[in-house]
């Protein structure tokens, strides 16, 4: 078996030290193979963003190591492109300039004309050509995320990371963009990692789904293989027995874990021993009475 493109070895990540230490991820072991589409699903606050930031290199593990093609990740690099949840477009740049910032950085040796052609091709690919000269504030949420997708794809990353890329979008735009991302992905079959809180989205898009346990000290749950044929049809999926089965399994797993996590936290809190201050009985009361 070839070297996995990303490998987590006993990775734990915590923030703060001593009493304030909050462990977000605990003992994560994960291998991501070349060319696969992996989805990681989890509730909010289960450390999904931390997990993806460990892969980009924006964060370093507190314990263990994250390997990229067998080498330890020491910092971010454009070869591991990321689509941020909140788009992270630079508001003072137009769509073109936002994409150009990335392209100019990754292909500095290309002649200007080639770069421009490249930029325009990717803007076209996400159907934003009419908005090329618009600034982010003039774009809808979906258009912003398309720009962000174009920016990442234009740099031809080896590994495409998506941190809840469609989380802030409405259901219709979400569906459209899911299909578009899949279309672009299947054109060159790069490795992709999708972080999401939507199990359906995960099943629709990925080859493999791994749930992330909720709460503190999250670990990874059992993996679920999705062997549905590509290209997948969203409408047909809804009645597909395999889809339903996997979906129920994953949801059950997550819900059950969620319940367990809630039980764990169910301790009665000690209330502070305080008496309410009544008007007129405070320490300044004598002033009023005296006058």
């Amino acid at each position, binding site marked *: 078996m070839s070297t996995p493109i990303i490998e987590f070895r006993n990775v734990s990540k915590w923030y703060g030290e001593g009493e304030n230490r909050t462990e977000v991820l605990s003992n994560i072991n994960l291998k991501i193979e070349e060319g696969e589409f992996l989805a990681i699903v989890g509730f*909010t606050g289960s450390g999904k963003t931390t997990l993806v930031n460990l892969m*980009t290199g*924006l964060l370093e593990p507190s314990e263990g190591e994250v390997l990229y093609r067998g080498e330890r990740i020491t*910092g*971010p*690099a*454009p070869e*591991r*492109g*990321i689509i*941020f*949840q*909140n*788009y*992270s477009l*630079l*508001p*003072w*740049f137009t769509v073109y300039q936002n994409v150009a*910032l*990335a392209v100019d*950085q*990754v292909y500095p040796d290309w002649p200007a004309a080639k770069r421009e052609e490249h930029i325009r091709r990717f803007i076209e690919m996400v159907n934003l050509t009419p908005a090329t000269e618009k*600034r*982010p*504030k003039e774009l809808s*949420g979906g258009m*912003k995320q398309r720009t962000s997708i174009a920016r990442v794809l234009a*740099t031809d990353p080896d590994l495409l990371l998506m941190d809840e890329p469609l*989380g*802030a979008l409405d259901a219709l735009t979400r569906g459209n963009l899911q299909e578009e991302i899949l279309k672009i992905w299947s054109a060159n079959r790069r490795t992709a990692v999708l972080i999401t809180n939507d199990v359906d989205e995960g099943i629709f898009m990925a080859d493999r789904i791994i749930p992330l346990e909720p709460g503190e000290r999250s670990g990874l749950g059992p993996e679920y293989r999705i062997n549905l044929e590509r290209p997948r049809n969203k409408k047909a999926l809804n009645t597909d027995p395999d889809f339903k089965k996997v979906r129920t399994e994953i949801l059950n797993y997550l819900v059950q874990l969620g319940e367990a996590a809630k039980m764990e936290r169910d301790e009665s809190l000690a209330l502070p021993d305080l008496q309410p201050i009544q008007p007129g009985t405070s320490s300044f009361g004598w002033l009023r009475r005296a006058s």
Partner: protein
Amino acid sequence: MSQTTTIPASAKTASIKRFLPSTTNLGAKLPGMARSAGITLASMLLFLLIWQLSSSYLYSVEAESRIDRVLAEQGPEEAEAMRACIASGDISCKPNTLPSPAEVVKASQLLLADHRTISADKAEFKAKTAGVNAQRKEQGLDLITYTGRPSFVDQIFTSLKTVAVGFLIALFIAVPIGVIIGLNENLRTAFNWFIQVFKPVSPVVWLLLVFMIVKTLTLGSDSDTSFLISAVSVGLCSMWATLVNTSVGVSSVNKDYINVAKVLKLGIGKKIFKVILPSAIPLIFTGLRITVSVAWMVLIAIELLAQSPGLGSFVWEEFQNGANDSNAKIIVAMFVIGFIGFLLDRVMYYIQQSVSFEKALS
């Protein structure tokens, strides 16, 4: 979750409206505008009334005390003569106090007339010396320049020139230093005490400090250093707001933008010019706007002390002069100073609005 989507829709439309020309709802706004114009006008009239009343009160107090003094020193006859003299409005015995609005208007007309006379004088002088100057230029000698008294309008332009130079000094010191200390937390710590301690120092003390340094640096040269001293002092007094704002703006760039720069591995130059500075520009310009206001405010005090020409020394000279219309001229200068300060602030406000356009809407 997402920061971009949590902006309430109402706030968004409000900020958009601010930038759109309000031609569409001008009709609806008109009564409101008329009302606010009416209120402004009424308050101006009230202001003039209070001014008039207090100046006439002060006038009578001054007149009475003058008559009483004459009565005590020279007897009743002379006192009567003084009373008659004051009543007649004769200049020789006019009580010197807060001038009335009418006197101020008259003084402003006098100043304008004076300006016209001096300009005519200057033009005449120029015509007269044109031939001689042309010769002197050929021989490589210094040109003969007009050395007469500057008019009030000339003083205004001198002041504007000083404040412009001072502002540029502040700009070129504060913005680069602000960017550098904004980028590095250790440098920020190192500069913190310096800023905290020197920011509140009075303009007068800055002037003295600059005087000490410039005096030594220009030893041996007999050029006039007062302009340099006042411009540098103005710059040093007014640069703090820009310095602080720039460093805050640079150090508090949205983390998302920094992450983009990190993931793309942007070089330091690109990172500063394409990500950090555009993001900090609205705050920098807010700082510059404060700097202009402060520069104009301290300029008058500094000119007054540095004996450099300008509105400040005009005011001081008039005060020392003590002529009949000196007080009125001082009040004219006060209005001119206030009005120019207001205009400078407006100009900076519009520049600020135009550069923060992108940011405000994103």
